[in-house]
């Protein structure tokens, strides 16, 4: 899918993110402490796209919450553009794992919630309109969230995050509820938006091929079998080649294998041939463990 125009952005340029020595523990009801994340170090350059991948429950969403300032690390610091994140950080825009649309607002008004504060009325309406067009929801703009499908709600949530025109875009499984075709479209849409108005993108996905198609680097998060409790970065894999990459590029086959292995997918389940089957396997395996 090619798009003719990306709506003009109104705010900040892409900003680098540095995650230094971050750990996060939760105290359970019985008083015991459970460490979810430990020793996370990651420098993300301005405008870079980083995909976060890892088994369900390993702390991906938790890490995103640290970056957007919705939650604070137990140890370590997060900085955006060298300024420490201390609370909800408005240089970030978040698309949550659930769509989280306000049920009493139309889709259009939900997307408008993302506009940077103080946006001119007409300019805001225009930008919302264009974003709705981009995510294929212009026909549903006046519907309420309960009247749209899960995938449509998720696209609205993505449009809401994009409407902010953020320096850092934090996306938690943004395409999780989409069918294969819409998912591919939305991936291209995200890349188009990124090319037109670069933002640093940190996204979580369970789809290895999606990570390899979109990201500059893929970060594998998980519990080190020999290490102490808590997920850490098991591997960082730079993805070669410039975007847009050919889907199922042969040179990526080895990376795909490595990632699937890192996710604990048995090599018998991997097929050497085209990405379609292996993608289905990877996706369903990662989801089955939920």
């Amino acid at each position, binding site marked *: 899918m090619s798009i003719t125009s990306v709506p003009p952005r109104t705010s900040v340029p892409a900003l680098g993110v540095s995650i230094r020595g971050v750990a996060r523990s939760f105290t359970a009801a019985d008083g015991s402490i459970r460490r979810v994340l430990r020793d996370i170090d990651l420098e993300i350059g301005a405008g870079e796209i980083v995909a976060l991948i890892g088994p369900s429950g390993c702390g991906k969403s938790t890490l995103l919450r640290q970056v957007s300032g*919705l939650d604070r690390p137990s140890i370590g610091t997060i900085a955006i553009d060298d300024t420490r994140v201390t609370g909800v950080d408005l240089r970030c825009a978040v698309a949550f794992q*659930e769509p989280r649309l306000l*049920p009493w607002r139309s889709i259009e008004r939900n997307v408008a919630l993302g506009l940077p504060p103080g946006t001119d009325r007409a300019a805001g309406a225009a930008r919302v309109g264009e974003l709705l067009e981009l995510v294929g929801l212009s026909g549903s703009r006046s519907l309420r969230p309960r009247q749209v499908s*899960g995938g449509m709600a998720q696209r609205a949530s993505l449009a809401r995050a994009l409407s902010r025109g953020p320096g850092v875009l934090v996306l938690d499984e943004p395409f999780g*509820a989409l069918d294969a075709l819409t998912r591919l479209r939305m991936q291209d849409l995200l890349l188009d938006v990124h090319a037109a108005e670069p933002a640093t993108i940190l996204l979580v996905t369970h789809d290895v091929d999606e990570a390899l198609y979109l990201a500059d680097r893929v970060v594998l998060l998980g519990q080190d079998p020999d290490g102490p409790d808590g997920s850490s970065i098991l591997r960082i894999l730079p993805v070669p080649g410039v975007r847009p990459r050919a889907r199922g590029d042969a040179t990526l086959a080895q990376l795909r294998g490595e990632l699937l292995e890192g996710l604990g997918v048995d090599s018998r389940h991997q097929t050497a041939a085209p990405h379609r089957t292996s993608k289905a396997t990877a996706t369903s395996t990662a989801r089955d463990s939920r």
Partner: protein
Amino acid sequence: MTVTSRPRGSEAGSLETGRLGASPGGPPSRRPAVRSRRLPVAKRPRADSNRSGHGDASTPPRRGRFLVGLFLPLVLLATWQLIAVSGLVPAYRLPTPASVWLAGLDLAGDGVLAGHIAISTQRVLIGFAVGSLFGLVVGAIVGLSRWASAFAGPTVGAFRAVPSLAWVPLLILYLGINEDSKVLLIAIGAFFPVYTTVAGALRHVDGHLVELGRAYGLSRTNLLLQVQLPAVLPTVVSGLRLALAQAWLFLVAAELIFSSMGLGFLLSDSQNNGRIDRLFLVIILLAVFGKVTDALIGVLEKYLLKRWS
């Protein structure tokens, strides 16, 4: 002499309704179920999308429903008439519908009835407005702030536990037998249902949505106006509905105990004069007015539910 015995009867009634409005379990129904974070988004239930649909085969169409609702009153009226004319019950215990109607015409003739109705309606409306406004404000503060909840929650709860009619002697002592004391009693009655529902509902607004608001930088005020209040609006309206019922209840109590005008006074006056036809008249009027004002809020509730969810 009977004046003292009658309020006791209505007090029992008030206790019952008071509990209803003040059910300790917090808001009815709106509380979001504990969310499973693991569920794939696509499985989100969309069940209630056609709850309001008209196509449901088991519900009669609107007009039909109105007529069906009219059926039982007509049957009651007919039964009443039959029993009254059969002589099974003496006339001083059960008037005929016609005599009640005539009593109504008689009272309406010189504008007396209109005066009673007007003053009662005025008391209910003012007391309801004052009480629910305070209920809204206090409920919002206690519902939004953990500190306020810890600080004031138990105290307000203790006041709620006082059967509201227990305030009557004190009100009369402090304010005297006048409009203020009556309106205040009604306001007390209306306060608690609104307070309870608002505080409970605000406490249980979907945490995901509140977090969304925070993530997009809404200020506290905007969070309240754009997320929390809209989320609790339907619950608030049902709280208002309960409060209105309470207001009518306390109106009659106040007027029975200390009043020289109004429908409640007409009740006690008719009892003292043995005017059973007027007693029936007032009860029917109370039913009609209570139902009409309730229906008005019901319309508002329906509209909001349709718009809001």
